[in-house]
């Protein structure tokens, strides 16, 4: 590995708590996510991004679909709609069209945004709707009990691929760029500060932007593939990632337990 792995700065705990209470529905905590899952970290990175951008919570709208990540909307204390599986992006498109002054964020898992909602994602990117899509990619359908996903790298085991996944996994940033997304970044769940900065840039960027977050699923991916307990997979993803800003998106395929290229890959001026 030529590039040195950068160690993430830790986030100031007190500062985080303050912003959490401002942005989260504390009456709904504890949340439903498992120990060792990266969705909680994604939420804290998103909240930090909102906070740093000094957004008015009244002017932020979250739309989420179905799945573990789909539940994020229900924990954020902003106008939030939890809709059908895969259809968060078209609902968000309608909202943005009717009230362009709002900051509209869609958050969903890989199955939600890229499989059942794949077509909506492609067309939102093509249309360049000014929404920010955050895709938590855990390589598996987690809420339904660990089925193979379009992002499952071969030959990973899932409950429905007992001999290993054999289909080609989707390269999300590549799809996003070719469909016309103006901003594309990828981080792993432990890159909290970088992820948060990317989310800030993505929200600020007019047009469709995508932040992919590579996150472990300790229940249905780590266990069956013997990748360790709790935080071990998360650490593995972090330690085996390499930051390559501006890497051509066609090179961003994620192979099973291999190096993951992270960074900001696409940052085009609007209107291009």
């Amino acid at each position, binding site marked *: 590995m030529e590039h040195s792995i950068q160690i993430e700065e830790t986030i100031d705990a007190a500062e985080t708590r303050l912003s959490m209470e401002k942005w989260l*529905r504390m009456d*709904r905590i504890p949340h439903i996510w498992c120990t060792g899952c990266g969705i909680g970290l994604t939420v804290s990175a998103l909240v930090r991004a909102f906070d740093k951008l000094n957004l008015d*919570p*009244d*002017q932020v*709208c979250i*739309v989420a679909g179905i799945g573990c990540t789909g*539940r994020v*909307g*229900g924990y954020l*204390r*902003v*106008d*939030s*709609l*939890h*809709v*059908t599986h895969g*259809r968060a*992006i*078209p*609902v*968000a*498109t*309608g*909202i943005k*069209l*009717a*009230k362009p*002054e*709002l900051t509209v964020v869609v958050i969903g898992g890989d199955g939600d945004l890229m499989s059942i909602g794949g*077509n*909506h994602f*492609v*067309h939102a990117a093509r249309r360049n709707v000014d929404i920010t899509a955050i895709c938590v990619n855990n390589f598996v359908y987690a809420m339904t009990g660990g089925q193979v996903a379009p992002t499952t790298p071969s030959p990973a085991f899932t409950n429905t691929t007992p001999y290993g996944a054999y289909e080609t996994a989707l390269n999300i940033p590549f799809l996003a760029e070719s469909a016309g997304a103006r901003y594309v970044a990828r981080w792993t769940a432990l890159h909290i500060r970088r992820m948060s900065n990317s989310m800030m840039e993505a929200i600020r960027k007019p047009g469709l932007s995508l932040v992919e977050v590579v996150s472990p699923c300790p229940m249905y991916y780590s266990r069956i593939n013997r990748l360790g307990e709790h935080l071990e997979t998360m650490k593995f993803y972090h330690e085996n990632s390499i930051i390559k800003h501006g890497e051509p998106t066609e090179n961003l395929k994620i192979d099973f337990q291999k190096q993951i290229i992270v960074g900001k890959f696409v940052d085009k001026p609007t209107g291009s």
Partner: protein
Amino acid sequence: MKANPKNVLSGVHNLTGGQACVEGALAAGCGFLGYYPMIPALDFVNHFIKRSKETGSKFIQMEDEISALAAVIGVSWTGLKAISITSSSGFSNMMEHLGLGVMLETPSVIVNVQVVGPGDGDSGLPSQGDTMQARWGSHGDYEIIALAPGSVQDMFDYTIKAFSLSERFRTPVLILTDNVIAKRKGKVSIPEASEINIYDRKLYKGPKDKYMPFLPDDELVPPMVNIGDGYRFHVTGLTHNHRGYPIMNEECQELNVHRLVNKIRENTDKITEWVEDGVDSADIVVVTYGLLSNAVKKAVEKARAEGIKTGSLRLVTVWPFPEKRVDNLASRLKGIVVPEINLGQMVFEVERASHGQTNTFFVQCSGEEAGDVEMIFGSIKEALTKKKKYDDIIEYTPKSHGA
């Protein structure tokens, strides 16, 4: 509330059914159209887009009907009235978000220009084949409101009605029309804006942090708020409590869905509408809706000329169905004739509501008026004398098997 003069094209105009529907929507205050191209719906779409220059209304062509209705739901939550139009196979695609619209209690109007199916069908032939799909198409228990315009003028009037019902009861409302009415040109008289009554959704005005998106008022309808107005609400399509939070257990399902259903059932008398013609003295009543209204009128006149005491009951709201009225009529009629442009759908609802007190006769029509008048007239005569067993309701004899 009165209509906004800016949106109302007052006067008498020569419009197609689709165009009249657009004018109705605009008069009702609709500011958004989400659609996916379907041949039978294009008249509507083109007219809406043409008119949007003057009215400032927004529109978007989505990637499919699923997302078209999704966008409508999103827009409606911002406080803007929204409509979507499609044709039968697109209506099938919309079933997913029809259910979501019901669950999120989102006011919206969906126009279905029916053509024959199933599958891809034939986009040139009119149909009433989606009558039952409109009622039962999405999964789970729910009640729906559906209107069936019988003329080009109805397309204008019923669209305003549809928006009012949808805003008042916070539910998607369907307009079931067909390929013939949508394309037919006719005189539409549009009143002055000051004469058009519209209904806007009830908005919550209390403290911002106390808002509960699903806490019902006395009509069982919860007041709404708009996205971006600072209420920071959450709504979910999952089984939810009054606060809009997902609570997935049996009690919450009951709290949630029983009210959704009762919201329509307990207000049925306020919603259901029909037009009667001479039923009180009739021996035979023709129950009809939509395109066949005209053919039925002619067939009834023809029967009366032959001395048969005939009346007609035209459904304005197909759903909810006027069960009590049909039950009440059935107790003293010699027969009920139900013509439809399908192979038998509403006839079973009429049969059910008449509780075996009289015979129900189905007439399979094609939407071609002259032929339909003869068929309906024939059935009225037959109903006067013939006794039928239940399994004879539909006598379907194929005209030929293949070319």
